[in-house]
């Protein structure tokens, strides 16, 4: 079933007086529960596509469908609400809130939006996530007291705390040593299997590409390869897969 679909998406950035076309008309379909790698060299448009899928940026042309619904006409407040309810984010630089400790950083998304989780249920869930990412002894520590790998684990737990359908990870292993990067990947793969959360990565990392179910390769803002478990994938979700298609 298609959970994300990009339809002829273009993104043009003004750079001084020049217009830079970062994404030049991209279409693809992502299925629920997939572990997807958007790979490509620097400047190929990976992060731009991830930002548009994550609704933190809007395409210049084309449409991004999230769970079958078009998003280009949504207002900022609606996009924010949709991000909060549907998506989790893992950043290359971890992007934790420095003044909050591990527990509070993970709790933070649950305090936003209108839906409130019961106190006991929340505590149980956050404790479970902290245990899953192996930070039980670090819950009261601030981000600056953690290693890079530990910070990324916190970011993973934070991304999962709202039980999002999709987790977007922008080069999540880029700032980690290879051993830690491997542990983080294993953790995400485990969560992907256990919770059926869709993981979408932008990456250079060959290890991620190796374990991905679905690989989309980019070059100069265009899709050069779109394969799903070794076979060419469709550029559009089938009508039964996505309401927007």
């Amino acid at each position: 079933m298609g959970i994300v679909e990009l339809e002829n998406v273009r993104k043009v950035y003004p750079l001084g007086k020049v217009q830079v076309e970062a994404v030049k008309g991209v279409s693809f379909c992502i299925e629920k529960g997939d572990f997807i790698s958007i790979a490509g060299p620097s400047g190929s448009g990976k992060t731009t596509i991830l930002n548009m899928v994550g609704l933190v940026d809007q395409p210049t042309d084309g449409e991004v469908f999230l769970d079958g619904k078009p998003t280009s006409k949504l207002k900022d407040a609606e996009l924010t609400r949709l991000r909060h309810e549907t998506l989790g984010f893992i950043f290359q630089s971890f992007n934790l809130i420095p003044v909050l400790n591990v527990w509070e950083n993970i709790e933070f998304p649950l305090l936003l939006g209108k839906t409130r989780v019961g106190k006991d249920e929340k505590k149980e869930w956050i404790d479970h996530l902290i245990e899953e990412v192996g930070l039980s002894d670090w819950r009261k520590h601030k981000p600056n007291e953690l290693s890079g790998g530990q910070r990324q684990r916190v970011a993973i737990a934070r991304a999962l705390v709202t039980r999002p359908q999709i987790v977007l990870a922008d080069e999540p292993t880029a700032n980690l040593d290879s051993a830690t990067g491997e542990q983080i990947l294993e953790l995400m793969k485990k969560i992907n299997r256990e919770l059926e959360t869709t993981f979408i990565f932008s990456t250079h990392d060959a290890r991620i590409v190796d374990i991905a179910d679905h690989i989309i390769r980019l070059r100069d803002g265009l899709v050069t390869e779109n394969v799903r478990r070794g076979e060419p994938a469709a550029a559009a979700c089938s009508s039964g897969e996505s309401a927007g298609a």
Partner: protein
Amino acid sequence: MNTIANIALRNLSRQKKRTILLGSAIAFGVMIVTLINGFAGAFSANVAENFSDLMAGHVFISGTEKGAKDKDVSVIRDDTALTAAVKASGAPVKYVTRRSAFSGTLIFEGKKIRTNVDGANLDEETFLRDRLLLKEGSWDAMEDRGALILSEKIARKLNADVGDTILVQMQTVTGQSNVGEFRLAGISFDAGIFGQMMSYANLSYVNELIGLAPDEYQTMGIMLDGLKRTESAAASIYAGLSGDVQLFERGVKDEKGAETPFQALMRQQSKETWDGVKYRLFTINEILSQIKQIVAALDTAAAIILVVLFIIIMVGISNTFSIVMFERIGEIGTMRALGVQRGGVRSMFLYEAVFLALGGAIAGIIVALVAMGIISLFDFGMENPAFIIMKNGHLSFYLPPLRAAGNVVVIALLTLVAVASPAGKAAKLTPAEALRTQK
């Protein structure tokens, strides 16, 4: 606590030096303004109380009758009705004084000086002995009918010593020139700028000099247990007198509005004619109505200082928060990506500004209160020229709680205005922009 407010509060501790610097700037401004407010708050009460002491009363009743050629003669011939009205008013009266006074020229060995001489019944006004400290001479010598107590300043100018005989020239209540002799019985500590005004003699002798009978006098002073009930006591006494005696209307204002109500009343009085004694009731507040203008000027000055200081501080705060916004641009992007709405980002900066302003303002008020406490410990002495604005020789302060709270609110609002622009810019950032721009 609200999550965003909690983060804002914690953010203040991230750059401790910067927070302390900004908070100190706010605290300094608030401290200055609070000190001025505190001084102005006590100024009016201190001046009024000191004047009450000097004039021996909070509420006064004077009598005037029309003499030859319609000349106003200041006299109270029979105070039975006045005494009854004071008693019936239920006012918290400490004591009642009966005084006559003249403005005359003292002459001693070729030296002259103009001064006021108050004639007081020293047997009744025992409090005067406690308040007026003698540097030389003794109160016992006042038993001499022609005895006089001068302030140190006047005695020095006349080069007179205790025991010397001083000639005095004055006019009687009917305007006739007269001379008399005083024997210098005591020299008091100089009562500052009013030192030259206040000299004391026996009431009966002053009456003789100005042409009044021994049991007559000019002004009844009613000293209350404090300044606060002055107006209510005056109103009760005035009501008690109405119908029994002839009374000048209270609170008459000059149509030009340029003079004090007291001066306007005097002017009104000179235009009227009547038979017998007509009484005028006035209070220390009416005499000192200009003090209110001084207090208003001090408060205005404090407000101007508050605004000027805070415009300077606001520019600093605004610039600092602009820098802070760029420093935290990645966090803004992260928060927006995680689901914080634009309003949440704006609120975070505004909360931070309010916490900073409240912290600074409260610290400023505390420092000002401590400074007031320390300053008020210093004894400047009653001989200090500024004694009139002091309380028993000490500078005193009174900070109206509402004024302090008002200052805190003004500062919080000004800080919010200062931070509104950077907060607005932060809120307008799209998450992608913010995440792209992060360090």
